[in-house]
């Protein structure tokens, strides 16, 4: 018999996490120029379309099938096509239907892929992005999800980070954010800078969209973090509160940093601080007290606000700061657990500041660094192969004119209601065209 409370919460959480990807599309879409808003949003929607299908066919099995050796990869054939997953295997004592867990983890895979797209705004061929998304999910995300999220049981062997290293990553600071952040850096390097990067004003074209997106991300993130308890229980409630307060503290931290540095507290800063805080608390939300979460969030807000300037210093075009927000925020959160974890929290581990010594700290650091390096190298190779074979960048002319029109044959906004007619041949227009030609003697 299923535990109805747990099942209801996990299914709700899966829906919340799914909503994060359209939310991310708004967050990213508002930050680019109006000529590329649709392509930016389409990279997220493309991930929604593709990754769910791959997840059902073999993704879940690679992530949560029996380990094939070393805690590195699950057996892709075990649950191929989700075979055997429809039966109700819950016992008298209660439990979660397998498919609820499959669905919950599916939406994590989608958003991780979508996060990367912020690094390559305005300039990636859509077809190549989709190819990349499928290959990257298969080669990088599904195995790393196995490392981090697949816990061993009496009858099942899972991944090495969760079961051997024993790093705490409650909801995906490593598997999702460090992973996507390092991948974003690699892709930004492979694709190169946008034309005019660092010289032209590449202003966000719609900050209200960015703020709506940040709001939807925060809302969805309750599913991401509190849902990762996989039960409607105390751990979920602690994770939920920490997700509120760390995020708020990070937004404050970002705003104070830019007020001091630039003289203004900006709406983009508030929205960016929200996301930086959400990223940082993701691995830590079961291990910290609410006060510890405030400290973690504030540190993440300040450090990410400083980190987004690095791309100009080092000259890489991580267009929407996937590195500055997700990689840096992910590192702050994952390594921060080693300092700020308290045994009073559900994860029941003391970090350095609570007298636990460096035992948890080194585990956190190893997990974070290994996943960062593996993701960067693997992504760089995948990206380079695609660039050399099918090509990853659009033509310079198309990039300048706008990728929306060139790649999708659409424009985001119709601000001139008189422009254009159905090309199937409006008779009035055709007539006036003939008259014009007759007058000019060109008919």
């Amino acid at each position, binding site marked *: 018999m299923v535990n109805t409370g747990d099942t209801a919460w996990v299914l709700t959480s899966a829906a919340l996490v799914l909503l994060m990807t359209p939310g991310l599309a708004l967050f990213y879409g508002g930050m680019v120029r109006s000529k590329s808003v649709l392509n930016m949003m389409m990279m997220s929607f493309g991930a929604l379309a593709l990754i769910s299908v791959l997840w059902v066919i073999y993704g879940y099995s690679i992530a949560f099938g029996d380990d094939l050796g070393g805690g590195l990869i699950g057996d892709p054939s075990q649950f191929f096509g989700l075979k055997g997953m429809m039966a109700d295997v819950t016992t008298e004592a209660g439990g979660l239907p397998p498919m609820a867990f499959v669905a919950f983890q599916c939406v994590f895979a989608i958003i991780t892929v979508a996060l990367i797209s912020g690094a390559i705004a305005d300039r990636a061929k859509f077809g190549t992005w989709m190819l990349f998304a499928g290959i990257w999910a298969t080669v990088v995300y599904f195995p790393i999800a196995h490392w981090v999220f697949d816990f061993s049981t009496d009858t099942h062997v899972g991944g090495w980070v969760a079961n051997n290293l024993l790093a705490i990553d409650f909801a995906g600071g490593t598997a999702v954010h460090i992973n996507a952040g390092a991948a974003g850096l690699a892709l930004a390097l492979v694709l190169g800078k946008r034309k005019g990067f660092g010289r032209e004003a590449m202003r966000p074209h719609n900050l209200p969209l960015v703020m709506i997106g940040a709001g939807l991300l925060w809302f969805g993130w309750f599913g991401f973090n509190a849902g990762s308890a996989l039960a409607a229980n105390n751990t979920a409630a602690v994770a939920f509160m920490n997700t509120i307060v760390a995020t708020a503290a990070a937004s404050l931290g970002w705003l104070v940093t830019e007020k001091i540095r630039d003289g203004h507290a900006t709406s983009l800063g508030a929205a960016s601080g929200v996301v930086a805080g959400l990223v940082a608390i993701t691995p830590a939300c079961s291990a910290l007290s609410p006060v510890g979460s405030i400290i973690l969030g504030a540190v993440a807000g300040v450090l990410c606000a400083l980190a*987004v300037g690095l791309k100009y210093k080092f000259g890489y075009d991580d267009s929407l700061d996937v590195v500055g927000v997700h990689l840096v925020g992910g590192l702050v959160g994952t390594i921060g657990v080693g300092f700020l974890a308290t045994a009073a929290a559900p994860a029941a581990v003391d970090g350095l500041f609570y007298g636990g010594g460096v035992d948890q700290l080194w585990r956190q650091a190893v997990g974070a660094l290994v996943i960062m390096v593996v993701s960067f190298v693997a992504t760089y190779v995948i990206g380079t192969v695609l660039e050399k074979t099918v090509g990853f960048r659009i033509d310079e002319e198309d990039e300048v004119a706008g990728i929306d029109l060139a790649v999708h044959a659409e424009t985001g906004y119709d601000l001139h209601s008189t422009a254009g007619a159905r090309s199937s041949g409006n008779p009035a227009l055709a007539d006036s065209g003939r008259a014009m030609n007759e007058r000019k003697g060109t008919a």
Partner: protein
Amino acid sequence: MKLVTAVIKPHKWEEVREALETFGVTGMTVSEVSGYGRQKGHTEVYRGAEYDIALVPKIRIEIIVDDTDADDVVGVIVTGAHTGRIGDGKVWVVPVEGVVRVRTGDRDEAAL
């Protein structure tokens, strides 16, 4: 007939319109434009990156008037749009050869 064109600060537009209406101007064409003069642009900051934005938003007003009214209309606009600070804009007058009211076919002064 003269075409009076004015480029003014957007926040002065309401005052200028009221003053023109009081003076007796019955119609005009207004557009939101951008440009710069001695005022130059302004600075915006996004995630710590400063951008110099060259173009400043302005309102352009176009009015066709009788020769005799042109100077007064210019005076009304200048009074209404004046703040004394840089970026107040410009008003200029050019001669107009002919005007037709589309609805009636009236020409020139009758079409004003």
